[in-house]
């Protein structure tokens, strides 16, 4: 195994991690500040992908499609929050899990009824369709664009959370919601905004994966599970935790799939290695989560609660 392959795999891991970050940022804020478990976060991602694919098919503009997915999900989330989820904020976590799981089932069936079970098509934007060569390896330029977009969102969120008044309130809300409310801040407005922002990021993630993945009902669930792993590792409520957690999970998952089987072939006989490789790769991320929780039960970047 060459250094080039390892570096390509690292790049793949970073790309996957940043995609997970787009999902995790919204989920961790909603979970941390509103104490609201939203299993339907994966459905928002799916709806974003559908919205982007449809916009792209009708307008032919990829950038419009991405904007439509993010903006559309922002509005959809505001409606969803007002109409349904706000009633759940004060209920216990089990009720929230049940209700939002219902939304997952509803959303999957709704997409199936509207667009059929066959996957939807979304092309790669022409400017980003050719691979670029990095040290003899072809790397898809579109995946490079996902890395750039993920880093821009991370920077934007950093500025929003650490440099603005809204960000200050969000941080305060994550530490002590009641106190923020007592100081005269309209916490309902704040939570609605956070929920919609998280949904817009999920929509953006959905739009970004459109050219890579098949857009179909149920596409949100696999990514939701990894996103939950990310926020548990990173520390619930922490944006910085979401970023580093996502990168760790992305790289661990990619190296687990790309490098671990090859390493096993060096130490075990081929038949055992062939059987053990995929099995270990699929549990690697969860072993990582268990290890982190054993040493840091609140995650790597815990939010301090008053």
């Amino acid at each position, binding site marked *: *195994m*060459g250094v*080039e*392959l390892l570096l*390509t*795999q690292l790049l*793949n*891991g970073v*790309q*996957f991690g940043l995609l997970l970050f787009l999902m995790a940022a919204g989920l961790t804020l909603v979970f941390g500040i509103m104490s609201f478990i939203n299993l339907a976060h994966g459905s928002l991602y799916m709806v974003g992908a559908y919205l982007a694919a449809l916009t792209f098919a009708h307008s032919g503009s990829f950038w419009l499609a991405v904007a439509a997915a993010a903006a559309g999900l922002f509005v959809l989330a505001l409606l969803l929050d007002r109409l349904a989820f706000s009633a759940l904020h004060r209920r216990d976590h089990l009720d929230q899990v049940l209700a939002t799981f219902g939304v997952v089932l509803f959303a999957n069936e709704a997409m*199936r009824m509207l667009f*059929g*079970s*066959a*996957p*939807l*098509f979304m*092309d*790669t934007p022409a400017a980003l*369709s*050719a*691979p670029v060569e990095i040290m003899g*390896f*072809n*790397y*898809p330029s*579109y*995946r490079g664009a996902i890395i750039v977009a993920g880093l821009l969102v991370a920077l934007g969120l950093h500025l929003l959370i650490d440099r603005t008044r809204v960000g200050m309130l969000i941080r305060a809300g994550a530490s002590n919601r009641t106190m923020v409310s007592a100081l005269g801040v309209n916490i309902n407005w704040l939570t609605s905004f956070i929920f919609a922002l998280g949904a817009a990021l999920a929509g953006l993630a959905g739009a970004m*994966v459109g*050219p*890579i*993945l*098949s*857009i*179909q*009902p*149920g*596409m949100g669930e*696999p*990514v939701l599970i990894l996103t939950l792993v990310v926020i548990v590792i990173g520390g619930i409520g922490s944006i910085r935790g979401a970023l580093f957690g996502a990168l760790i999970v992305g790289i661990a*998952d*990619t*190296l687990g*799939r*790309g490098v671990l*089987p*090859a390493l096993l072939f060096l130490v075990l006989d081929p038949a055992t290695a*062939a059987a053990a*490789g*995929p*099995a270990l*790769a*699929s549990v690697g991320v969860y072993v990582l989560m268990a290890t982190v929780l054993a040493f840091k039960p609140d995650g790597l970047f815990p939010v301090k609660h008053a």
Partner: protein
Amino acid sequence: MRKMLRAAALTVAAAATALAVQAQEVKIGFLATLSGPAAALGQDQYDGFMLAVEQNGGKLGGRTAKIFKEDDQLKPDLGVQLAQKLIEKDKVDVVTGVTFSNVMMAVAKPLAAADMVFVGSNAGPAPLAGKECNARFFFTVKQNDNPAEALGQYATDKGYKNMILMAPNYQSGKDQITGFKRYFKGTVAAEIFTQLNQPDYSAELAQVQALKPDAIFAFFPGGMGVNFVKQMNQVGLLHKIPVLTVSTVDGTTLPALKDTALGVLSGGPWGPDTAGPANAAFVKAFEAKYKRIPSEYAAFGYDAGLALNSALAKVKGAEIDRAALVAALRPADFPATRPSFKFNRNGFPIQDMHVFVVAKDAQGRVSLKTVATPLPALHDAYFEQCPLK
């Protein structure tokens, strides 16, 4: 008055006789996966089957076809319940359909226990072709390994020396790789097993690039296939090395792949351009009715309908004698969409196995075009284990 009564009685008697003739019907249980991510497959089986029924004026073998349509939701336990419902409550004469092999293996037991006649129109699991074969089961499809075997022979014919084999890590994936290796004589550089329903293949494709194979064999059905082909294309591998696939580019995924999939190779017994007047007529009728190119699942469903039509015509009497129906099905004298089609002694077909390439058809639509027939009149690998004569 007496005359009138007599006339009335005669009319009633005549009507009753007419009714008795009319009542010559056949009850057919259609069981398939009609919801969930794989619903497109079951729907195509159903549409193909119903096209055959419709072309015969709603009848099969001169009997009015009464169809009991059931959706197994890709759940083996539900499939068993539905099979029992079809057998005990609806009292069907024959069961057809079944999309997935895991459901097939589960429903085989209740069907066999009830001595039910079964005409399968998609799943073709190895055990039912071998040791657990059943004299009353017929498959108008292919044994699951056959397309991979054809591609293995094709790779050998083409002289590929060094190949990477890829599939999801579950039973079907392993079976496909075994089937491919049965006929591939070159070296296997690596077997890469991915997680089932894994969306991203970047790590695996980087490995493929590092190993620089002559060609790739891949089995990624449904949405996995869309993801895999798109990502192969983005990394620039798709047009650099041949990609040999099973169930990855078919009628269900091509609409989501479009031009991206051009040039991908696929193995199977049937394509829209398979030779013969029967297939040309089928493709034309299917496109006219459903406004889309038929998939192989539609062709298998259509052939199941034709097989039952020809066999039921030979069974006399109001009651359908199952032994007579089985004897009538065995010669397979129906105009199948695949001209080489015959039933082997295990109820599975002996037929030509082709390799197709994704290409534009005459109307500029993305479709499959035959490029080679590496294994003509292929017997499946398991029929010798079948105790039936």
